């Protein structure tokens, strides 16, 4: 349960998995701006899929399945918005240099 040491670990794990999964998805996109070239699309997307499936499972060890799925989806939405913005900021910084 959230608040207990085990629950907090599972929530942290769920968050870590969704961050890694969203980053893999973004870095496989031709529009990614973090790396010089995108990651190979198929392997990166396969890894992303595995991580993004594992994330709600980790959340569900700390809470019921419905809030676990909600937490996962809300976190994923946020990350998929933020990652391109970080990419855009990196481009702006590189241009300034």
């Amino acid at each position: 349960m959230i608040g207990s040491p085990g629950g907090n670990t599972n929530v942290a794990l769920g968050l870590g998995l969704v961050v890694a999964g969203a980053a893999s998805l973004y870095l496989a996109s031709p529009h990614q701006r973090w790396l010089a070239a995108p990651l190979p699309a198929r392997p990166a997307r396969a890894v992303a899929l595995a991580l993004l499936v594992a994330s709600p499972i980790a959340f569900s060890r700390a809470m019921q399945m419905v809030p676990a799925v909600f937490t996962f989806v809300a976190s994923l939405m946020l990350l998929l918005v933020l990652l391109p913005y970080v990419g855009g900021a990196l481009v702006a910084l590189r241009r300034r240099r």
Partner: protein
Amino acid sequence: MRSEIIRIYKIVHTWTGILAGMALFIAFYAGAITAFKEPLARWASPPAATSMVPLEDAQSLITRTLTAHPEAARELRVNLRPSEQVTARVEWEIHDEDADEHDRLSARHYVATVDEEGAVRVDEAHPSRLAELIDVLHRVVGLPVDGDLSRSIMGVIATLYALALVSGVIVLLPSLVKDFFALRVGNNLKRMWLDAHNVVGVVSLPFHLVMAVTAAVFAFHDGIYFVQDKMIHDGKRSAAFQARSAPSGGEPRDPAAMLPPTELVARVEALSPTFEPTMLQYVQVTGPRAAVRVWGHDARSLSPRAQGGFAMVDPYSGRVVSTDYLPGRQDAPQTLLSSFFALHFGTYGGHPAKWVYFLLGLLGAWLFYSGNLLWIETRRRKASRRGQGEIPAQRRDTSLMASATVGVCLGSICGISLTIVAAKWLHGHVADLSAWHRYLYYAMFFGAIGWAFVRGGARAAVNLLWLAAALTVAIPLTTLLAWLFPSLGMWAHTSAAPLGVDATALAGALGFACLARATSRRVYEGPTDSVWSVRRPLPAVAGAEAAPDVERATG
């Protein structure tokens, strides 16, 4: 044909965005802050003058309070967990009969304590209404009162918002997959603002659809209930709910015969060990339909309401009457219904979900702001690429839109920060702090709008962003001053939640300062053929590059 359909939806998207965008900016910015309503209320609450009556003595206090103040029997609260804003064991509110039923800002608040002689003492309290005021701004898109008219306006805005979302997606459909994740930062500003707008709108579309639908339902719920009553319940809706929620009885009951709060809490905890009770809400306890709602949270479950969930208990028998709103104990239909509330309020997933909602809320505000920037950029009159000829005058509608966007959006940000700061500076110095919160917010808000129209959107954007940074950094600075100089009469709570408010405000102030610097560069050094430039170009010389700035000193 396809391009014609997309053109029509683009017009719909543009107009719905223009009509609803700025109101939605306020709703989302205030809503993001409302994700941390409780920490903000704790930050704004002065230290308690008296200590809380022990829970074991609460039953006696309730009984004696109800004897002396029978009006409290309508609805009385017993708090279980003291915090900065929860300082009294027993409290209740008397609502103004002329006020709207949802208007909590006008309610009078009373607390019952025990004095040194052991007698019950009832005082009118004046708890901080700051967090509630910001919540009202969120609920009714910046309008001052949470009344029927304001809610109807909010409902219309929410409907336009839903229309804007659907039309926006249809416009984007042809390039949705191809441009997913694209945020092309470069010289093509229109493309950049379009990408910046679309990334937020497309990826967080589920969040926005939920917000649009739930906001419309919340706004029109009285009307929906009215239709339900006529169509489904045959005009007896409230009677049907009363019959279900509590057994009917004959004679009014004696509150002295109620089970003590500790026992009522134990009954609910036995039912759901992971449920953490926070408050008992006694409803009509001297009447035949006496009930106690045992409110609380369950970290494993979603909460059906913003303040948590509850089990309904008969205070005389201790029988749990209903678990329809008890987190973790709801059946499938109730869970489905509660999901809409939980998805709107972010009442699931603990602190991580709160932070996610806070950031998604801010990004939502940015969605509407960037939509206006895009509208302005699309209508920009550009100079010749070779720098030949006159710098064209910008359209009047884009200049007015720039002023309105800057004034309304940044005015609401400045107003909220100012009114937050006032919670500590004005406490004890004004008779009605709640009213002052409103005066300050609206004075700042309308002042900013006036300033934006007088100075123009470009200059005002820089001015107001710096002002937003200054007013927002004043939040943690006020706490620091209160800690350094207790003689100022302010307070500096040191628990995690209020300190979190200070830390978040500090981060926000830094963000506004960065935006102010970037905007300043754009306004004073950027291309002159834009409403976002204050440089007056020199007459262009054939073949020469864009004219240098000559008016920086006037900014």
